[in-house]
């Protein structure tokens, strides 16, 4: 299954992914119309910077997800088709237990609806909106094995080259 990976060294913290994410998860799906929607469109990816280092933080869709285990209303579950951890808003009661247990801090609150908001890997899209929009390709959507192989090769090349 494909996952979203982050190459932190080429992220410029431009936050295009945040914008694309919020728009993708809106009704109008338009940068012009979406911002005026109620409930507010929300991002599921969080670009952070510390000490000059940038890092987009997003849901890892943990195999043994703490949010799914902790959910007290049966809202969070693993969608086996998308292989994604998703939140069923008909079930979500806004108790925020998932926010309390998520080790990455990537679950948000849709305040107008009182629902938990998280990455769903953009159902219906071949490539998630955040990845698709990333101008530097810091975000990539790939099989884990392929990503790790490429990283190993790049590292080996850099060592050999140096």
């Amino acid at each position: 299954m494909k996952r979203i990976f982050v190459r932190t060294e080429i992220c410029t913290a431009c936050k295009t992914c945040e914008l694309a994410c919020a728009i993708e998860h809106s009704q109008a799906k338009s940068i012009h119309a979406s911002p005026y929607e109620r409930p507010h469109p929300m991002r599921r990816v969080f670009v952070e910077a510390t000490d000059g280092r940038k890092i987009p933080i997003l849901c890892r869709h943990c195999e043994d997800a703490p949010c799914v285990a902790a959910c007290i209303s049966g809202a969070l579950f693993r969608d086996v088709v998308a292989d994604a951890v998703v939140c069923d808003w008909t079930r979500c009661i806004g108790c925020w237990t998932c926010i309390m247990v998520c080790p990455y801090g990537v679950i948000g609150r849709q305040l107008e609806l009182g629902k938990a908001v998280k990455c769903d890997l953009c159902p219906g899209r071949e490539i998630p909106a955040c990845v698709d929009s990333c101008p530097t390709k810091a975000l990539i959507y790939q099989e884990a094995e392929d990503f790790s192989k490429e990283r190993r090769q790049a590292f080996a090349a850099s060592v050999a080259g140096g």
Partner: protein
Amino acid sequence: MRHVIVGASAAGMAAAEAIRKRQPSAEIVMLSAEAHPPYYRPLIPYLIYQGKPDDEILREPRLTPRDLHLRLDTRAVRLDPQAHIIFCVDGQGHEIDPPIYYDRLLIATGASPILPHIPGLEGGGVFTLRTWQDALEIASAAQGASNAVVLGAGRIGMKSAFALRHLGLSVTVVELLERIVPQQLDAQSAAIFAEAVENAGIRTILGHTLAQVNRRNGKVISVSLDDGSELKADLVVIGVGVQPNLELPASCGLRVGQGLQVDAYLCTSAPDVYAAGDVVETSDIVTGTTIVSGIWTNAVDMGRVAGDQMAGGDVTYKGAFSLLNAMELGGLPVISVGDIHRSPGDDVEVFTERRGSSYRKLVFLGNRLIGLVMVGNIAGAGVYQTLIREKVDVSDLHRELLGPRFHYGHYIHTEKKVVDRYVSAG
């Protein structure tokens, strides 16, 4: 292999799932003393004011392990660990024949509400809130009632109060301690919530308790407080905590302390008999003290470990949180984790910050974070929770943790520094 699970709530279901994961074809029998199909216990306050359709309170089928032989209205009453047999009775108290054989047994019998000794408490009109049936009984009593008194301002007490207020009753919550939700809130955060509770039209009386429930012709008409004052009441809800259901383990002499005692594998003193959830005596993951936890998230954790063990796995249990709660009360969210009531001094450092109705409290012990309260802005609370749970040395993160926007990036960048140090040290 036949696994028998006694209890169909958080711990039992998590165990069944863990067993199913390891053993796709093992037989799993689940016994529930309740006549009602499995449901999400934390959601039963909704039943009082019909805030949610019933089927959204019932356990989600996609989160129920497949091929689960569920036996409702079946109360396990006696255990023969040598013969691996469990004896049960039905709802009428008739013994079910034949008794049930197990290869591995999980005791996840949970806990029951504590009823304090108060004159007049026994009888109709006084309720606790633990089961689906309890919630329906409160709902039915609330019809035509105008005044409700809730004893205990803990989670259950406050949830009951809000539910009854929803129905238009005049509600008074009486709490012996000097603040509401005393386990989960400190004085400052409780003050924020006191406003939210007041705005919801719920009256609270702190520092007092019930001395007597007064009845006329058997019907509750009022309660008397310990200071002699009297409150009109058509119904009373008691929410002063729970105690583990130890009748079954006690029936065969399993080792019992404050709760059912287990080892690091969640195995009881009898072979092939495991335990998980509110019935278990375990240790506080933060302080190491002995506790019996009544928390959903802990119960799920224990269930997962016990189920894994029963199916031949090797996961061990590291202990429970005394406090690990998230909730929204009066439109305001709060998350509380770990040891939040420590005073500064003796290696303990306490940081608090209040902005409007937002509040944050961090408690440090030496180089560790041990406690967290977040009210209002709860973004990223799980990152702090993980630092507490994993006992991470946060000396390098101190400044970031106290800052307004601590996030996971701070943590992995610190990890990077650790790696850098390691590399530079050769």
